[in-house]
């Protein structure tokens, strides 16, 4: 088909350009823009009326001018070419090769917006993934096909935790194919390097596909990057039958890019200036995790976001929490007390855990003991605030026991070396060691049967 080229723009505003007197332009189609110096850029139609189109330029509009810039409409939505060759490669935010491996050529091109998965066709995720991190495995178990974000703050070790999970996660049995899709949105150069190094060290690099948009890359590309990455993940999972772990960082930069674009378009802002459709937009990314009935592969997502000012009620963590199936929340106070990983278990949660643990998957006592740990640790916090008023010595005996328990819980259960992987048996047994510090009658979440079987009763000398 003949592709008409238009010369001249009506308006340039940040990454948005307006072209007038166009015809036959489709909503959401791809655009090629040639700058006066001959450089070719890509863009996408955001809005179209009978003779006018608003186009978002991925690389930004610096260097474009009104009279000489040329625009060509490509007659199709944004697509990426995908094949198995993408494994081990690094791409930029719009899916172009960023290493020296050359472009990917493939017959198969995929629309980056995908289509929503039919809820009826989904397979409910049940198989748990052992991450080797006690706090995660024991209390907020990750399930294959789940989306479980890490809510962090600037300066907290979320990257280390994500890298450790990626390194240690046993996504499936040994004969199953496993790969990582890593998408960086507006992260710093050294953060990106840290991930590459850690993938190298764990020897998974040839099974990693990276889409990298760094902090100084154009912010519009940031909106495209996760879509390209998830399209690649869907291809690997549902056509190549692989189990894919998608690490997405940092969702805060992504949302900020979205806000930037929205404000350029003059849209009515919602909370804190973010567009009213932030929820739907985030959902269109997160909901791409999952499994499909009758297909082997799966997509598990670990999005990372840094909460501005450590505020969990900020729109980005808030809306994310409403879409994802739980969250892992990091806490500065624990980090400062040298507890790694500094996971604040009380607001953390895995929604899919209920169906993925227990006798069939991990161990019969898993769900009860985790509920008991939550309840006990929650009481520890009440006791701590009481102790800060009346002093530890004035606490009742049982409350002092709780303090002791809290101390041990943080330092023995939560705290773990970055290169230490504990299997589920070890984690659960550690949990019982700790819970046995508390007298039996305090354990209202555990059935007598469980207590008889696992509780470590002490004799008069305090020996178990």
């Amino acid at each position: 088909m003949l592709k008409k080229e238009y010369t001249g723009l009506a308006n340039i505003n940040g990454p948005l350009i307006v072209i007038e007197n166009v015809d036959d332009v489709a909503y959401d189609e791809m655009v090629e823009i040639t700058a006066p110096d001959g450089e070719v850029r890509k863009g996408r139609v955001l809005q179209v009326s009978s003779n006018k189109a608003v186009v978002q330029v991925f690389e930004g509009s610096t260097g474009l001018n009104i009279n000489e810039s040329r625009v060509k409409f490509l007659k199709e939505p944004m697509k990426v070419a995908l094949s198995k060759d993408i494994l081990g490669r690094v791409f930029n935010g719009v899916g172009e090769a960023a290493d020296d491996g050359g472009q990917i050529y493939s017959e198969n091109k995929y629309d980056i917006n995908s289509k929503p998965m039919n809820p009826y066709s989904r397979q409910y995720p049940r198989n748990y993934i052992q991450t080797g991190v006690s706090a995660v495995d024991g209390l907020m178990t990750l399930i294959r096909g789940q989306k479980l974000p890490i809510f962090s703050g600037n300066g907290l070790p979320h990257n280390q935790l994500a890298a450790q999970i990626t390194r240690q996660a046993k996504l499936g049995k040994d004969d199953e194919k496993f790969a990582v899709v890593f998408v960086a949105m507006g992260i710093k150069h050294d953060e990106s390097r840290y991930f590459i190094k850690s993938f190298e060290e764990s020897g998974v690099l040839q099974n990693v596909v990276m889409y990298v948009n760094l902090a100084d890359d154009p912010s519009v590309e940031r909106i495209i990057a996760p879509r390209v990455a998830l399209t690649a993940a869907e291809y690997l999972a549902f056509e190549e039958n692989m189990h894919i772990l998608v690490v997405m960082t940092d969702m805060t930069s992504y949302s900020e890019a979205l806000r930037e674009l929205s404000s350029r378009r003059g849209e009515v802002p919602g909370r804190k200036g973010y567009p009213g459709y932030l929820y739907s937009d985030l959902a269109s990314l997160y909901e791409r995790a999952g499994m499909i009935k009758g297909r082997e592969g799966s997509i598990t997502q670990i999005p990372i976001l840094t909460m501005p000012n450590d505020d969990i009620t900020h729109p980005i963590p808030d809306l994310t929490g409403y879409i994802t199936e739980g969250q892992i929340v990091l806490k500065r106070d624990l980090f400062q007390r040298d507890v790694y990983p500094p996971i604040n278990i009380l607001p953390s949660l895995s929604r899919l855990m209920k169906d993925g643990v227990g006798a069939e998957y991990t161990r019969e006592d898993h769900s009860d003991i985790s509920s008991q740990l939550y309840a006990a640790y929650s009481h520890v916090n009440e006791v701590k605030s009481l102790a800060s008023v009346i002093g530890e010595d004035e606490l009742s005996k049982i409350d002092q026991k709780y303090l002791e328990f809290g101390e041990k819980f943080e330092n023995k259960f939560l705290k773990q070396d970055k290169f230490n992987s504990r299997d589920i048996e070890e984690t659960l047994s550690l949990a019982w060691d700790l819970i046995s510090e508390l007298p039996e009658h305090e354990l209202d979440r555990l059935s007598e049967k469980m207590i008889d079987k696992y509780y470590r009763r002490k004799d008069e000398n305090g020996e178990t």
Partner: protein
Amino acid sequence: MEKQGKITFINGPVVEAENMTGYIMRELVYVGKLKLVGEIIELDGNSATIQVYEETSGMKPGEPVFSTGHPLSVQLGPGIIGNIFDGIQRPLPFLEEKDGPFIQRGTRVSALDPEKEWELKILIEEGDYLKSGQIVAEFDETSVIIHKIMVPPGKEGEVIERVPDGRYSIDHVIAKIKDKEENITEIKLYQEWPIRKPRPYLDRLELGVPLLTGQRVLDTFFPIAKGGTAAIPGGFGAGKTMTQHQLAKWSDADIIIYIGCGERGNEMTDVLEEFPELEDPETGKSMMERTVLIANTSNMPVSAREASIYTGITLGEYYRDMGYHVAIMADSTSRWAEALREISGRLEEMPAEEGFPAYLPTRLAEFYERAGYVKTLGEENEGSISLIGAVSPPGADFSEPVTQNTKRFVRCFWALDKSLAASRHFPAVSWLDSYSEYLNDLEPWYKDNVNEEWFELRSRAMSLLKEESRLQDIVQLVGEDVLPDNQRLILEVAKLIKIGFLQQNAFDDIDRYSDINKQYWLLKIILYLYDQAQPLVKKSVPISQLKNDELFNKLLRLKNTVANDEIDKIKEFRQEIDDFYQQLADSYQK
């Protein structure tokens, strides 16, 4: 010639078209070459604004808009129960069959299976004069639901033709009626009804029967009436969806309509996998035999999300008209409100609070007012619609517009508390922030059907909980040891109520559903213990003696050791309490 408009502008789900004279407001239209489903939301001279229920990517100005002449409607007939639809009533199993696991655009399928035949029993004779809503035929739709074919609202007349009993598919004309103006109406197995128009009824009745949910904190402390409305607000992780699922499973309604509005895909899958396995405590049949699911997950088109709750409630009204008690769970109404906001933003309307359109309260009121306990047209049966909407306030801040406006139109408020959820106290319904305005309406029912002293018991328990929260404030400052023993006893008893009564484990086979009688006795036994222990405090028996670990633990475990039909075991427990405190009293007498 058929009317045909022309697209002039596209911005996501909002499309403008010209040459639209003669189209009607809220008309269902097919947009573009792909014939995507859309609805007219604004008419201005020759042009119209259309909200499109499918993704508009690839659409061009100049493409046509086709008229249908009628508003966005649903098909009401057999095959609804047990099915799962999207927001505009497209059956998802059919979509999967046609398009595979991802939802494609422009796929048009009949909401109800046109091929399937139903075994009909015709209930009318030629010459009968039928009123609107009168039942023409009936048959088993599922093993628990008898479907009744009714004369559509607004139609009536004398039967001039009828078919004999037999097997018919939905398109078959089973009777013809002729009204006084000689207009003939054909009655088929289905009728169509616009989703935004409430279906008529004869009369609204007073509410006086509870919708029992098997959830102790709700039935006992904050009951909802059949035909009533409730809101469940809570931040993420507080257990909104879990609570909604529990209600869908255990409510004593005849039919459950569960609307997943802008929520997670896996949650719907969970329901789909779990419900067929669950047994209804009343009928012993699978839960799916009485459940309808509407799934418009967060990544599905936002305008269909807006329509989904109307679709759900219209299906509910249809079954209400047959004389059923329907309970509708909408999870979450905040996502619906956000869909309104998103579309309003694209229309560049002047925003009110937090970007929501100024008509948000009006829309909420229209929605919740479709609940009610009614006398139906025709047969004058009683039927009801109870509405339970989840609300997802940003940052769990209840002062935001959706929560505040919802509060104005619902009479039950089941506030979920994040700190309860964090300590894994489920259901995390806060007993201090929640309320039910139905208490007085329902008092007679509880007195007649459970026990005379029901309300007294409830009030006593409630005031103990209130007192405990006051005492906790003091404890936070000075510690528990300095309280006098009678107050420490209150703390212990409140703990019994919280753990032994309010907390309920959704995954425990016995605990997940408490019938109303068991609820009464569980609460009774806790207060009984209080009554026995209190006199001993006066006799200076120390609290450490009164709080016997074995006795207390046993009491706490009654909820998951005693099944609904073994209430005697709870009654017998009184003896154990008596014995223990008698012994204690004796030993202190000496």
